């Protein structure tokens, strides 16, 4: 397999993940009862399409353009269990589910990077990990507002 072919394969995998995530969030948005949760899932579905478009652009350009800056990772997603999907799931669980999804994506690319020593591929994986961590970080910030209510 040529180097270009391998990089394309990774891009295709990443793009297919974004497509799958878009489908997942769209489906979830159609099944939940709360308008706020529906809105969150719809917004996440749109985000995934933007990520897909971005990756498609990068696939055809030189790798040096694909510079995602590393974000601080506070490991909030890692501190939460994966919530079970339910049509009446609360907003908190919806956001938790999404941030866990991004955590898993970052983990996947980080793991794949462990199987190569090719500099271009390492750069690509680094960018993909950073991209997913960026999404995770955004969702974690949202989770901070939603996930820890002071209620009694």
């Amino acid at each position, binding site marked *: 397999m040529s180097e270009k072919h391998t990089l394309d394969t990774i891009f295709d995998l990443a793009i297919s993940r974004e497509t799958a995530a878009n489908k997942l969030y769209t489906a979830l948005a159609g099944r939940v009862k709360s308008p706020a949760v529906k809105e969150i899932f719809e917004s996440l579905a749109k985000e995934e399409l933007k990520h897909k478009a971005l990756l498609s652009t990068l696939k055809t350009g030189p790798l040096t353009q694909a510079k995602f800056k590393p974000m601080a990772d506070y*490991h909030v997603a890692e*501190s939460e269990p994966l919530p079970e999907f339910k049509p009446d799931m609360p907003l908190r669980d919806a956001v938790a589910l999404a941030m866990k999804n991004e955590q898993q994506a970052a983990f996947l690319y980080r793991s794949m990077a462990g199987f190569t020593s090719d500099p271009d591929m390492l750069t690509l994986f680094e960018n993909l990990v950073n991209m997913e961590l960026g999404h995770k970080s955004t969702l974690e910030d*949202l989770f*901070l507002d*939603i996930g*820890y*209510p*002071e209620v009694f």
Partner: protein
Amino acid sequence: MKITMNGRILEVQTGQTLLQAARQHGIHIPTLCYHAHTGPAGKCRLCLVEVEGMRGLQTSCTVEVKDGLVVKTDSDAIRSARRLVVDLLLASGRHDCLACEKNSDCELQNAAYELGIERPSFTVEPAVDIDDSAEFVTRDNAKCIKCGRCIAGCTQVVCNEVLDFGFRGHDTKVICDDDLPMGKSSCVQCGECVQLCPTGALVDKKTVGKGRSWQLDKVNTTCPYCGVGCQITLHVDRASNRVVRVTGRDIAPNNGMLCVKGRYGFEFHASPKRLTHPLVRKDGKLVPVSWDEALDYTAGRIKAIVDKHGPDVFSALGSGRITNENNYAVAKFTRAVIKTNNVDHCARTCHAPTVAGLAAAFGSGAATNSIADILEADVLFVIGSNMTEAHPVVSYYVKRAAKNGATLIVVDPRKIDLVRWASLYAQQRVGTDVVFLNGIINEIFKNGWQNEAFMRANTENPDDIREWVKPYPVEKASEICGVPVDTMKTIARILGTAKNVNIIYCLGITEHTCGTDNVKTIANLQMVLGHLGKRGGGVNPLRGQNNVQGACDMGALPNVYHTYQPVEDPKVAAKMAQCWGVSGLPIKPGYKIPTMMHKATTGETKILFCVGDNTVQTEPDMNKTIKEIKALEFFVVVDIFPNLTTEMADVVLPDVCFNEDDGCYSNMERRVQRLRKAVNPPGQAKPTWWIMQELGKRMGVDLRFTSAEATWEDMRRTATSMAGITYERIEELGLQWPCPTTDHPGTPILHLHGKFTRGKGLFCRTDNRPPAEVPDAEYPFMLSTGRRLWHYHTGTQTRNSVGLETIFPEELLEISPVDAARMGIKTHDVVKATSRRGTITLKAWVTDRSPEGVCWCAFHFHEAHANVLTNSAYDNVTETPEYKACAIKVEKVSDGVPFIQTVQRQARP
């Protein structure tokens, strides 16, 4: 930009002075008048430097950096000039270092040492001019170098505006008001001037002769008064096991500032009145016993009663005054050992409506912003908060913001001291907050000032609120709330057209039968204005006690574990059970305080375990509370002082106080901050966590409390929003929750991303509901109650600290001049105040702080206690009593000593 200083190239920022740039890069330039808090003054001329291209020596505190400047901070010419400055300053006063309290802490002494001046070259003998009239601060004018730091601190930092320069030329000196002795002036003794004074001209009176600076250990900790959570340093004399001085630390939230209680109310820990031994009632009397006997007896009685009647006959009270660890210990004992959720604490009596109201609107009841954000608002809307007395350090920020140009609107039934700094004051009638606020919202809609974009994007029902406030046009609202129509219109305009409004409120809003509705209406107002999720805005309730936020955080509540995990959630219960190594944790929420107390009279509450609450004095309608406690089968009190509540106990266990053990408090901005052991506790006093561990052990459960830190770590294992906060991480500076992981930096502002905890904000309908008891022909006055600057809670701490009781020695009934004149009452006359529940006799204070028909007193003094009079009617959502409104009658008993005051003082006659 870059400058060169002493040959070093320094990166500097625009707007910095040379002095600030030097300090940033660790280059020493001596100065006496400059302080980071008070800014450049250009008075002492000690900070002279050479700047290439400028003629003569320059004062580095006044010259701003410019790209390429070349500066020398040390040369023969500079030293010579500095030497002359210090020489003249030394000569101009009586700087007798040997006996001076500031010896070794004196910046003038340091400058003289640095410049090699042993004796001044000139001889001037200024007259001795000592002002010893104030309770806590001694002024020695002969040691004053006229640097102006104290004046800047008083007027620009804490904004009490008492000190100024008086007279001219050689006679210039620092004066209080119109040159009154400090003790007779309007000074509130916050001590900021002492902390900023570079010499011995201002010293803490109580510290004099108690030890040199180098002889005292310094222990950093958190102030034990109010919810601001000021960071302090205790100066400890190890030999006598006493704190002898307190200073403010230059970090958040107080940045060095303190109030009179925080700085000078420290001796209570060493009071001979402290509880020192466990006491058990035998033959009707409390007698000292060993810890083993007290614990065996207590555990045995609790077990016997619970075995016979079931766990729900047990109720416990944590406290807003004890540490997080101790509240967690009480809550865990109640749930894991007794197997009931009947645990509550004094948030029930103060801010429970905040949580209920804000949770309904936003999804969470926490304050949205940090204290320092106050300085970034352009409008401050303060309602129901007498902050200059109850939260003085917050008031410093508010006053400073107002002086810097922010518009301060104060809304309060009493003309409180903060009004002096307000651009606009509205005096609503007691209990009419919903009407007033709905009128304001109505007027905002009427003029199209609402933030439509925010409402549409971030709230669930933006059209409802417009309809709900329609019955409250300002003309109609004004008739009910008493605020003039024009004032309401002006307030609506200011709020509706502001860039950034910070809404601050306190117990004047919550302690009503409609407290939750009051809070919901405040949330409605802010969601209409849309100033949420940004710096300087938000809805910010001021939590009352030092750790009332933490007591909530730690689950000393009947329906949630620590970090607000619901007791009804089986997954949460299973998690706790597994981690704690127990089974059968109760799923049913427990009783709130009023319910647990009421059930004592029906036999459903048989045991009350009360920690640091002083229930008799803090619950409304004292006679009712006493009757309820008398109906208990077994009453245990853990406290630091004997009080009206310990007198009724079957067992009294001596607790440690804030400086006798490690731990942490959570302040009103969700900031978790350390407490550190500074002195040894008296006698056999023990921490609450130790008491709960020993009782648990005797009842078959190891709670795993081996130290304060171990207790915290035990809590953290099952926590959510505080799981990332460790003692190590808050060693220097506290962290604000949510902080869910040990990597997370904490969260100073909530809802920053436009998302409320519940997703979208919810407007809630609120309507006018008068207080449960209103004045009538028999009881014609409305009584409102609260806290005084000089005292705290039931007085156990402040009345056992030297000086505070001298300043404010007894409770006074505030009454308006109109009512007083009609009844022939003068300040200091003895009067009798009677409600349907009891009578107290006390002296009158005739003051325009009270409007006609309204009286006011506090609950600090058991001799004349507001809660003898207050009504136990409560908010139907949270069971928070209506401390702010009940009907009384007032009768004059006798004439008092004639009272003449030459200046209107803050917070006292």
